[in-house]
């Protein structure tokens, strides 16, 4: 009996875990391992010759010879600004849309809609809005501010990307926060009211703290997706003007597939991985502590 069970386990493991193991090895594990090897080389992606250059690529990255540091600072800035605005707007929308408004559900759907479309397509739609739509609004309302060349200068291109990020992702935070707010027991709110707490006070002192685990989730998600920005970057600004809005992911893509610097690009990709790993683990650690303080 015991022997038979062991035999079964072997076949079960092979059958149930075998296929995913093979796929996982081919798509994730082996590429990751190769990435580490390439990062010490100066391979150009075409020739058969691979020369190993030690830490040269990493040296170029951290000394600023490669453009990666610029991309890093840009990504950090845009992440900070967008994440703040996305979460503020998302929370506001959730508060407004948990009240008993008429047309509440279609409104929720409208705010979530951009989230269902790909970043590339959203970027192209907004390219039209920034090139034709905003100037037309500016002419109509006589607002010079709107008529500038949005995608032509460093500052406005940055602002354009922030606008698209907020538009695309506020709906996600709204959905999460609606789940959080509707999970709060109404008795708790009632008793606060009986004790004389004003609505704003109730929101800040009771509702918001109870939402912290959910806010953590949405922060986690918005930060990591902003750090990985690629599609909207490709379609809206193409990293320009003069490379000033090139995100880390776009920079890696360009170095690998446009400039044929596979070695350098894999090194950048590893640095990118470490940055994301560091930021997300700090975040996970802090959120664990916060949660245990409250619960």
């Amino acid at each position, binding site marked *: 009996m015991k022997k038979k069970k062991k035999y079964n386990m072997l076949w079960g*493991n092979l059958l149930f*875990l075998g296929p995913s193991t093979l796929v996982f090895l081919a798509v994730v594990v082996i590429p990751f391992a190769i990435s580490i090897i390439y990062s010490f080389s100066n391979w150009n992606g075409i020739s058969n010759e691979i020369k190993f250059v030690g830490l040269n690529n990493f040296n170029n990255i951290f000394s600023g010879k490669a453009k990666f540091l610029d991309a890093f600072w840009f990504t950090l800035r845009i992440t900070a600004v967008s994440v703040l605005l996305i979460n503020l707007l998302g929370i506001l929308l959730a508060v407004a849309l948990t009240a008993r*408004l008429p047309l509440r559900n279609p409104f929720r759907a*409208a705010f979530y809609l951009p989230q269902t479309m790909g970043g590339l*397509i959203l970027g192209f739609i907004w390219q039209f809005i920034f090139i034709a739509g905003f100037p037309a609004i500016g002419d109509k309302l006589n607002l010079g501010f709107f008529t500038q060349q949005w995608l032509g200068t460093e500052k406005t291109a940055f602002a354009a990307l922030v606008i698209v990020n907020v538009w695309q992702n506020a709906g996600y935070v709204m959905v999460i926060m609606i789940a959080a707010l509707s999970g709060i027991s109404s008795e708790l709110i009632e008793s606060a009211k009986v004790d004389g707490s004003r609505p704003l006070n109730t929101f800040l002192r009771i509702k918001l703290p109870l939402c912290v685990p959910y806010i953590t989730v949405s922060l986690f998600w918005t930060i990591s997706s902003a750090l990985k920005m690629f599609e909207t970057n490709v379609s809206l600004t193409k990293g320009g003007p003069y490379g000033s809005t090139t995100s880390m992911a776009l920079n890696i893509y360009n170095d690998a597939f446009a400039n044929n610097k596979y070695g350098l690009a894999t090194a950048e990709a590893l640095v990118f991985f470490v940055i994301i790993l560091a930021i997300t683990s700090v975040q996970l650690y802090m959120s664990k502590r916060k949660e245990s303080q409250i619960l």
Partner: protein
Amino acid sequence: MKKNPVSMLITFMVVLAGVLIFVAPLWIMVMNSFKPLNEIIAFPLRFPDEWSFDNYAKAWEEVNIPNIMKNTAIVSFSAVCGVIILATMTAYWAERYPTVYSRIFSSAILLSMLIPFATIMIPLVQVMKFLHLNNTIPGAVLAYWGIGLAFAFFMIRSGVKTLPYELEEAARIDGCGVIQVFVRIVFPLLSPVVFSVFVMDMFWVWNDFIIPLILLNNQKLSTVQLAINRLFGMYNSRWDIALPALTMSMLPIIVIFILLQKKIVGGVMAGAVKG
């Protein structure tokens, strides 16, 4: 909560204004897609004088809409079905018959969620070349299987945890083999969570740009995202072709979203709670 009608009205108006601002970009795109090019450029905010489908006919030809829709549908469907089959098998086995290997493997899958795609994409092209799957639909599908495994595994495993083991035991006693138990009992019972994952992954793959960009460099195999990107590369500022193409490319997604709204939002919430 009781609210006085005035503050209610104000909230409503503010939210309505927000909705209008949010939907405006899409509305401007759709409206302009019916106008001739000179009108688009001169008066982008004005209604078309007449709603003409000429642009749509041009864009349909130019972008080969039937072909890219077909490609995207084939890629998305095979990618998502594969992800679900792999993830369900792995999640079920790891949850019910934990061994040292399955423990290591499941934590490796979960850890892979932290690896951004940009980190593995460069060697992934080499792996696909080695497997002779470069620039083929199976190659792109295989990549989606590997990348999508983590999220699906994570969601489905928490579904398996809620299944009563007694049902499986009873089936075993009645003479079902492991495979039969899985196919006839476990999989059907998991269908709600599987459906959620199906819908969310479908949106992901349909909208994904980077995997086709690096693994489907053959124009005949273009997906929607690739074709749109190529279109904008070729005709910069030919908005009379670009806008109808964009509108058509979004139509399936918007229809599915309207039909499955509750399911999609429910799935996002479930994902958040488990995260």
